[in-house]
C-alpha cells in the first residue's frame, strides 16, 4: 500500500499541465532556451519518467526527499525546521479541544434540552460550520485590530529573539531556560491561533461525544445498572461513558485531518512559521519536490495515526479483540 502511495504522489507531481520551470525562472529568463535547458538538467527534469521514479525511491530510502525548488534547500531540512511550530500549535489546540469538548458533550447529553445542551450545540455548530481562515481573520481583527488585547501575528514579538532551547517548542524552551518573559510572550501569541485551530475539532468532538452518550444512556445495560441501585454518577461515568468513548476515539483520524487543514489556513493568517504556511507557499509556487515531500511526510503520519486509532479501538472495545 505504501509503495502504491508513493507511486501516486510521484505521478501526480509529474503529470502536470503547469510547468515549474516558468514559475521559478520568471518570464525573462525562461525565454532563453539555454538557461531553460541548463535549469532542467540541474533538476533532472530531462530524464525519462521511470528513471526519475527510481531516483525518487532511492532518495526516499535514504531519507532524501529532494530539494525544494523555491528555498534551494533539502526538503527534509525545510520540514524539520518548520515542523516544531506546527506541532506545538496543533498539540495545544488538540488538548484544548479534548479538555473542553468531551465534558461539554457529556454534560449536553445528561442535561438534554437544557441551556448547557443549547450552548454545546451552538458552539459545536459554529465550530464545524465556520471556515477556519475566516475565523482566524475575525479573531485577529477583533482581538488584535479592534480591542488590542492580543499580540499581532507570528510566534513572538518581532523584536524578540527565539529561544535557543533543545526542542524547537517555544513554550518548552523558554520554560527550560527560565525565561519567563519569553514564556509569557509565547503563550500570548499562541492563544488566538490555538483557539481558531481548536474550533473545528472542538465542534466535532462535542457533537460526537454528545451523540454517543445519548445513545449509550438509552441502552439496556444502563437500565440494568440503575436497577442494581448504583448511584447515577457511577452509572453515567462507569457504564455509559466507557462505551461512549469508543466512537469518539475512532474519530482520531478525522480530527487529525481537520487539524492539518486548519493548520494550513491558520498559519497563513497568523504568519505562523510552520508546516502549514510552508505547504501553502509550496503549492502557490508549484514547488513540486516540496509538495511531494510534504505529502509523503504528512500521509505517513496520517497512516500512523489511523493505525494507532485501530489499535486503541481494540483496547477499548473487547468485542473487536478476538
Amino acid at each position, binding site marked *: *500500500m505504501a509503495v*502504491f*502511495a508513493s507511486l*501516486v*504522489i510521484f505521478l*501526480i*507531481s509529474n*503529470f*502536470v*499541465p*503547469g510547468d515549474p520551470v516558468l514559475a521559478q525562472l520568471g518570464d525573462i529568463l525562461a525565454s532563453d532556451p539555454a538557461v531553460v535547458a541548463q535549469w532542467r538538467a540541474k533538476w533532472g527534469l530531462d530524464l525519462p519518467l521511470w528513471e526519475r521514479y527510481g531516483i525518487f525511491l532511492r532518495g526516499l530510502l535514504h531519507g532524501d526527499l529532494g530539494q525544494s525548488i523555491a528555498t534551494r534547500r533539502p526538503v527534509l531540512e525545510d520540514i524539520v525546521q518548520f515542523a516544531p511550530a506546527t506541532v506545538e500549535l496543533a498539540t495545544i489546540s488538540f488538548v484544548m479541544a479534548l479538555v473542553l469538548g468531551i465534558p461539554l458533550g457529556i454534560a449536553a447529553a445528561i442535561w438534554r434540552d437544557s441551556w448547557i445542551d443549547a450552548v454545546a450545540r451552538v458552539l459545536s*455548530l*459554529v465550530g*464545524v*460550520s*465556520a*471556515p*477556519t*481562515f*475566516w*475565523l482566524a*481573520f*475575525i479573531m*485577529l*481583527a477583533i482581538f*488584535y*485590530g479592534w480591542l488590542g488585547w492580543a499580540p499581532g501575528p507570528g510566534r513572538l514579538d518581532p523584536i524578540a529573539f527565539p529561544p535557543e532551547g533543545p526542542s524547537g517548542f517555544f513554550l518548552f524552551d523558554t520554560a527550560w531556560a527560565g525565561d519567563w518573559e519569553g514564556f509569557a510572550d509565547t503563550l500570548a501569541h499562541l492563544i488566538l491561533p490555538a483557539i481558531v485551530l481548536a474550533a473545528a475539532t472542538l465542534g466535532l468532538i462535542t457533537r460526537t461525544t454528545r451523540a454517543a452518550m445519548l445513545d449509550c444512556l*438509552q441502552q439496556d445495560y444502563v437500565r440494568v445498572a440503575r436497577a442494581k441501585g448504583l448511584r447515577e454518577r457511577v452509572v453515567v461515568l462507569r457504564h455509559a461513558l466507557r462505551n461512549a468513548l469508543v466512537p469518539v476515539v475512532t474519530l482520531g483520524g478525522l480530527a*487529525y*485531518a481537520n487539524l*492539518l*487543514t486548519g493548520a*494550513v*489556513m491558520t498559519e*497563513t*493568517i497568523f504568519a505562523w512559521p510552520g508546516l502549514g504556511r510552508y*505547504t*501553502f507557499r509550496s*503549492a*502557490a509556487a*508549484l514547488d513540486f519536490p516540496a*509538495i*511531494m515531500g*510534504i*505529502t509523503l511526510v*504528512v*500521509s505517513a503520519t*496520517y*497512516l500512523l495515526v489511523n493505525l494507532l486509532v485501530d489499535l486503541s479501538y481494540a483496547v477499548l472495545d473487547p468485542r473487536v479483540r478476538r
Partner: protein
Amino acid sequence: MALPASRMRRRMRRYGLAWAGAAIVLAWLLVALLAPWISPYPPDAVDVTQRLLLPSAAHWLGTDILGRDVLSRLLHGARISLLAGFSVVLLGAGIGTTIGILAAWLRGWGEEALMRLTDLVLCFPPIILALALAAALGIGTTNTIIAMLVVWWPKYARLARSLALVQRSQEYVEAATVLGLPQKRILFRHVLPNVFGPIAVLCTLDLGIAILTFAGLSFLGLGVVPPAAEWGSMVSEGRELVEQWWVATFPGLAILTVVIGFNFLGDGLRDWLDPKAQR
C-alpha cells in the same frame, strides 16, 4: 387531519431547526439563481476612486481594494460556491455509491480490488491530496472540482458497501430471490432505495464540508481564477485588511450561514430517517 395545537407545536420544535436549515439553503439557492438580476453592480466593476469604502447606502457591504461592490460579488460568489459544492458532492456520491454497491454485490476478488482502490485514496489526508492535485492540475474551478472529486468518492463507496451488505442479508432480498426476480431488478428496486436514505443524509451534511473545502482551496489561491468573485478568494484578498474588516468578514459570514443551513437540514434528515427516533 388537523392535529391539536399542542401536538403541532411539539412536532415543530423537534424539526424546527431542520425547517430553518431548509429555508436558509433555499434562500441562498434563490440568490445564486437570481444573482445577475438582483446585484446592484456588476461583480467585476473596478473603480479605483471608490476603493475601500465603508458600508453605506450606496454600497451596503462596502467596497474592496479595487473598488468593487462587496455585496454584488457576494451574490455572484454564491453561484460558484453552491455550484462547486453540489457538483463535488453529487458526482462524488454518485461514483462512490455505484462503486460501493458494485463491490457489495460482486463479492470475491472484484470487491477486494475495489476496496483496495478505496483504501489507497483514503491513505492520504484529504486536504493534502486535494491540495497536491489542485496544484498539479492548475488553478481554475473545474480543475479544483476534479481534484476534490478524487478525494471525495471513497467515503461514499465505504458507506454504500456496508449498507448494501446489510441489505443483502435482509429477508426481503432473500424473498425476492426465491420469487425468481432478476438480479438487476432486485438491485434497483429493493436494495438501492433502502441504501438511499443514509447516503442522502451524508450528502446533505457533506455539502457544507464541500463548500468549506472549496472556499479553503480558493483562499489558498488554488480554486477560482481571479478576478472571479468567490467567497474564499474574497476573504483572501481582504485578509491583510484588518482595518477594512468588511472586505473579508462578509464573504466568510456567507459561508458560515450556508454551511449552518446544510448542517441543520442534514441533522433533521438524519433524525427523521432514524427508526429509533420514531416515537
